[in-house]
Each structure stands twice: as C-alpha cells, then as structure tokens.
C-alpha cells in the first residue's frame, strides 16, 4: 500500500513538473515582456545597463538563452520560489505570494461549485432516469441542454440580472460583485456574512454548469443500471422499487461517474475564469487571464502549476472514490 501510494505520488510529481515545464517554455518563448516594458512614449532613454538589470532580475532577458532562463526558473522552483510577476505588472510581486492571496478566494468557489453541482447533477440525473419521460425528466433534460448550449457569460448575466430584479422589487439582494467588502473590519461577523453572501451567485453559476453535464452522464449510467439483472434480483428479494434503487442501483450508477469527477475540477476552473472576471473576484482565474494578457511569464507558469496540482488532486480523489465504491478494483 505504501509502495503504491509513493509510486503514485512520484508519478504525480513528474506529471506536474512536465506540465509546468511545458507551460514555462511555451510562455517564455512566445511572450515578450521586454517589448511591453518600454512603451514608445518613454520620455528618457534608459541606460542599457539599467535595462539589462531590470530584465535579469525578472529572469526575462531575451539575450539570455531560453534554457538558461528555464534552468534559473527550475532552481527557484526547487526552493519554492516561482519568480516575480513580469510584463506590464512592474511591481515585482513574488508569484508565490500572489498565488497565496488568490488561491483561497478561488478555491472556495471551485470546490463549492463542483461539490454542489455534482450532487445536484447526480440527483437530477437519477430521478430523471427512474422517472423517464415524466414531466420532470423532460424539463430537466431541456434545461440541461439550454445551459450547456449557452456561453458562460450569458448565464452569469442572467443570474446577475435576476438578482438585480429581486433587489429592485424587494430592496434586498445579494452583493453584485467583489468577494470581500474592504470597508468592513476583517474577521468581523459582517465581513464573514458578506463573504458568504457574495459567494452565492458565482457558486450558483458554477454549480449549474456542473449539474447540467453531470445530470446527463448520470442519466445514462442510471438507465444502464435500471435494466440490470442485479437490480431485478434486489427487487425479487423483496426490496421496493425505491429501496432497490437507492441501495443497489445508486452505488453501481455512481461507479462510472467517479471517473468524470477527475475532469470536473478542471472544468470548474475554466468556468471560474469568466465568473471571476464578471463578478470582479481577485482569484486565480482572473490572474490567469491577466497574466497571459500582460505577458507575465512567471505568473503564467505559476498558474499552470496550480491547475496541474489541482487536476492531479481531483484525479486522485476520483480514483479514491472509485476504490471506495467498487471493490473489484481495490
């Protein structure tokens, strides 16, 4: 068992390393932060030595060979240093620090959205399979397809406008943007309740997307289970329809779902890009978009490292889930 886990961990470290290295090499060879550092409207010429130092300290000097920059970056990676932000972001914030402030904000959104979406999707999918062709099945199928065919920003706008409509009517509503109210004292109850309220709408958006696709998968796996012999056996033993389904059918239908879960977190991260932009959250998704936009080589590589670890963790969780559900693969 220890051998298995350590082998697994080693594979993951290698995978994360490979993914991040690719990201770094791609970003470093395609992005040119030196070009955006010197806007043509600069009033005074900068001494070449200063310029060189400026680029070197950020490890983005185009005169240094790519692999040398990569080696420097790797050296930092081993010490837990991901470099500093580059590109038009001239503040030289360490990427690790940037990630550390943003991950908690993003992670609560991604995790909550995935969990709620998955549970909701599993329930809706199961019910619509069991009550096939009922009104509930038709409505949920229709809604799932509408959601899946709409672009994320449209759904966000719908959710935001609904909230606005309620606020106009009743005078009470959820905060429209920002995860944290900087005017409230941090740690106070007002601040926490604001954070919770602010979380509601973005989570709804992410959960809706997860639920839409999950309900479809779940419906298919449940339909398979419904026609199975063991479910018939369970009923022949004297379990009612509902109890046979929850005791024997649900677990069997969940087994193939475990594998989809590995992708769910990745999908939620992609979803969170738009959500963070449109709700003005200072999370990882927003950081990813802006890093790429302003040619931040180190920032981009840092984001990829984070998503790689997140994806591998969710894959591990999916495997763990499968092991729990299915004794045949233990």
């Amino acid at each position, binding site marked *: 068992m220890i051998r298995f886990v350590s082998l697994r961990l080693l594979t993951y470290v290698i995978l994360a390393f490979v993914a991040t290295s690719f990201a770094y090499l791609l970003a470093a060879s395609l992005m040119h932060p030196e070009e955006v550092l010197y806007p043509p409207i600069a009033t005074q010429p900068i001494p070449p030595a200063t310029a060189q130092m400026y680029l070197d300290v950020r490890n983005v000097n185009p005169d240094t060979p790519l692999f040398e920059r990569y080696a420097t970056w790797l050296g930092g990676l081993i010490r837990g240093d991901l470099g500093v932000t580059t590109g038009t972001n001239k503040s030289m914030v360490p990427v690790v620090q940037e990630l550390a402030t943003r991950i908690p904000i993003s992670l609560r959104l991604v995790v909550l959205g995935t969990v709620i979406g998955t549970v909701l999707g599993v329930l809706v999918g199961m019910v619509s399979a069991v009550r096939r062709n009922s009104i509930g099945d038709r409505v949920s199928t229709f809604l799932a397809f509408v959601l899946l065919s709409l672009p994320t920003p449209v759904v966000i706008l719908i959710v935001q406008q609904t909230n606005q409509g309620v606020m106009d009517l009743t005078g009470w509503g959820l905060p429209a943007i920002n995860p944290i109210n900087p005017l409230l004292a941090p740690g106070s109850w007002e601040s926490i309740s604001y954070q919770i309220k602010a979380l509601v709408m973005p989570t709804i958006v992410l959960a809706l997307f997860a639920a839409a696709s999950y309900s479809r998968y779940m419906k298919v796996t449940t339909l398979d289970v419904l026609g199975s012999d063991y479910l018939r056996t369970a009923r*022949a*033993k*004297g379990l*009612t329809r509902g109890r046979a389904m929850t005791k*024997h059918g649900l677990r069997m239908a969940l087994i193939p779902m475990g594998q989809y879960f590995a992708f769910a977190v990745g999908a939620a991260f992609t979803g969170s890009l738009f959500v963070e932009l449109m709700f003005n959250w200072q999370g990882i998704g927003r950081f990813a978009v802006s890093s790429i936009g302003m040619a931040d080589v180190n920032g981009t590589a840092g984001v990829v490292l984070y998503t790689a670890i997140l994806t591998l963790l969710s894959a591990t969780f999916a495997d763990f889930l499968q092991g729990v559900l299915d004794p045949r693969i233990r």
Partner: protein
Amino acid sequence: MSDTILSVRDLTVTFPSEHGTVRAVQNLSYEVHKGEALAIVGESGSGKSVSSLAVMGLLPATASISGEIELMGRKIFTLDDKQLSELRGNTISMVFQDPLSALTPVYRVGDQIAEVVRIHHPERSAAAAQARAVELLEAVGIPEPGRRAKQYPHEFSGGMRQRAMIAMAIANEPELIIADEPTTALDVTIQAQVMELLKSAQELLGAATVLITHDMGVVAGFADRVLVMKDSRMVETGEVDEIFYRPREKYTRDLLSAVPRVDLAESEGTASVAGAALRRVAEAVEATEPAIPREERPAVLEVEDLHRVYPITKGALVRRKVGEQRAVDGISFDIREGECVALVGESGCGKTTTLMEIMQLRTPQQGVIRIGGKETGSLTRKERQALRSDVTIVFQDPMAALDPRMPIGDIIREPMRVQGYSAERMAERVEWLLKTVGLLPEHAARYPTEFSGGQRQRVGVARALACDPKLIVLDEPTSALDVTVQAGVLAMLADLKTRLGVSFLFVSHDLSVVRHISDRIAVMRQGRIVEIGATEDVFSDPQHEYSKELLAAVPIPDPVIARSRRRMVLDRAAFEGAAPEDGSTAA
C-alpha cells in the same frame, strides 16, 4: 383445491413496440400445487420468462397485463409495490438465468444473502442474519462458507454464484420458487450439480417450483408436470411421463425429437420420443462412412505438441512475470479428409485458444501445425493468404458474426473477392451456396437482420464454404440456437460433410450435440487432451475419469432414466442449523 400455491388464469401480456403490439403471453392458465415441480418449456420468444416475471410482479411498466394471478389466495394484480415486496423473497423467490450479473458486484455475497433475511425479518440482528447467511452457503455446498461469505461476487465462479442465488432463494423458506433458466449459463458438470441442488432444496422445503427452461433434458429429471409453450401460447400440459412418452401435440413431438441425446445407443429401446430427429442425422453420418479407412486418407490438419502460454504480469511501469497461464499445454491431433473431429470441453479448457492458434496460420509458440501437409510457420505472406480459403471458420454467435450493413450475398461474396474470383463465378457460386445451405437464391439481397438465428448461422456456413475449403472450423455453431433450429443446422452440416467431403473441426461444450455429428472426439481439460478416440468408443467406454464425469453430467431427456441418476445434495443439517435459533428469536 386447497393446496394450490399459484394459479394463473387467462394471463395475457402485451408490450407496445415500434412494429405494433407484441403479444408476449396469450391466454395462459396453469396451477401449481404445494410441493409440486412444474416445468415451463419453450424456445426463445415463447413467452415463458415473461409469464414468470408477471407472477413476481416484476414486469416493466410498459407491459399491459390482463387475466388473474393468485398466489396463496392473494390476487397479485391488486397489490401495490410495497405489498408485493412483502411477498417477494419471502413467499415467492426467484433464481435467475445469469449468475454473473444477477448479484450486485459491489456488495459481499454474505451481505447480499443476509439482506434477504433482514428485509423480511427486521427483528433479527445483523449478526444473526450474517450467521444465517453462512449456514445457507454451507447448505448449498460452498466450501469454507465463513470465508466465502466475506468475498465479492467476482471472486466466485459461475456455479458458486448460482449456488449463492439458490441460497438466497431458499433463505426464507418460500412457498414457491421460480427458477428461470437457472443453468443455461453454466458448464454441463456444474449444471448437473445445480439442478440436483435445486431439486433437493425443493424437496426439503416442500416448496412448489416453477422451472423455466428450453432444455428438455433438464426437465426430465426435475419436473412432475410439464407445460410446453410456443409463440406466447400454451401448446400442451401434462404429467412429465405423459409428455415425454406420449406427447399429444406435434410441436411437443418436434421439440423432443430435436433434443440431442448423449445416450444414443441405449435410446432406441426407451419409450421417450426425445432424440428421434438427431438419430436420423447420426444414422446418415454412419451410413455414408467412406470405404477408405481413415489412416489411408490424407491428413487435412495435423497439430503436434501445440503450446500456448500466456504470461501473467504485474506492475504498470516495469512489467514482471509473476506466473503463467498454460492455455494450451501440448496437444496433438489430426483430421483426415472428410472427417469430423469434435473438440469437447468446458469453459476455460483451451478450446478457443486452440482454434485461434490454428486460424492464425503462424508459427505457434511451441509445436507444429500442418495444414494439408504444409507447416504454417514456413508460409510466405502470399501462401498464407491463399491458405485462408482452405481453412474457414463459423462463429458461435450468428447475430454478431455477420455485418448488419451488408446484404448476405455480399457477405458470402467477400471471401471469394479476396481470393480474386471473377464476377460471374461469384454470382454463380453465391446462388449455389445459398441453395446448398437451405436458403433461397433470391435471399441474397436481404440483410442479416431479416433472418432468424438459424438462417443466419446457415449464412455463416455458406460464407465458410465459399472458396471450397478443405477444413471448416465450427466454434460452438449451435450453442446460440434453439433446439429445433439446432437440429436443422446439425442435419445440414452432416449433409454437407457427406456430399462435399469437407472436414470439420467441431468445437463444443455439449457432448450430446457432437454425439450425432462427429467421427472422432477429443476431450479437453486444462489445456490438454485427456482422451481422444472414435465417437462410439468414447461414449460407450470412456477411459479418462473426466470423460466419465462429463458424460454422467449430461442430462438425459427421459424421465425414468433421469430420475434414477439423482442424488441428494442439499446439506439438511446446515440448512436447519438455524431452527432452534428461529424459535428463540420468535419467543
């Protein structure tokens, strides 16, 4: 009558489908009395399974049902799901066909048996139910029941799973057990054990039993009464002896006469109708025995000391060998011109691996395969391709073996096209081939789905015959077919053999089938041929222990003979082990 357990009156079940309403069961009426075993016999699609699911109240919601089913005086169509659930597993229980899929794969076998106890006796503790599950497993003859109860279904063999299903079915001492093709998916030796177990369970409990089967052989030793169904209707019903010895209806007679008999030599003296049709096949085969003795005829296929070993590996990154599976372990046999050799054995004995080794036409891992005197390892690419027309194969499942998007004319034409036949010659041959296998030339434009299973298997044979092969390998060609259809296909094969002089390698798990068609039999077990000899000799005087066991396990479609072969197998002491405990929990 007071001791009527189940009475079905005028039952009609219909399903809506794309092609209008399908009548699965029409006007079926029967009664089962206490302690009686009724067998419902019929071929696929005769409505036998649907009628029993109706009794359990387990038909899908789309079915529309009329008539009346009364179980112990309760009309089951008036009960709701909850009331029915109280009957299922307690008063009435069921053993299903496929033990591989009938148990929930993610729960321990012991838990699944304990579950049926606790559903109907919630007052029992979980531990008591577990203990009862172990007792039941012991009663149905599972060794080390304590350890086995903690295992999952995939750790059980097919026969053991069916035993576990029976343990579940008898757990609450039901009044009625319905067994739906309980042994169809099992090997013949396991089938014999499971049927004996069912019979003794029924006698021990005094329960009424409904056995649903297509196999007349199984019926003979089990049932008191028989009900024959065809095309959703009842054909005939009567005492078992009456049905076997004096059938009134033509269909019953056809069904019985199509049943292959392993005890062919002795069967002539008995009163049973069973096997009559195939006796004629066998006689035809024997009568046309060519004058030249087999040793002087050229060999079509020679297999010498063939081995096929699969390594068992472990590890994903670094694969290391932890053991080996000797699928074929040094077998040798030969087939002479115009001869039919049967390769018989139970699942996993290496039959299919042997076939694949021969069909590949490559150098085997170890040993030599010669076709028409040519060693397969020495062939060039071109020669190998040409040789493909000399050795052809007919597959087991006629539904899966034909491309559903090709008209059968094209299916038969394909091997000839590969070998470069001219268009006129192909057209001519397709017509001739279709006639030869008993189909009409105008069928050539139709698609496989328009044919029945037996007709499709005939198409498969026509395809195999297309390029005048020397040897046709038949991989369980009739095991997916109904008995009456099987008899027809076997008769056709025997006829082809005598008319065309083609050799067969007939692979089968069923001794009684090869009895009628083969000249020689090779009995395989665990990758080895344990006995090979002329069909008559193997059947009348089997030498190897395993051949004897196999022969003894084949059910005989004659009630008197079958009854004389029965044994008691349910462990009465283990089953009743819980009796005092029952009393204590009730008190």
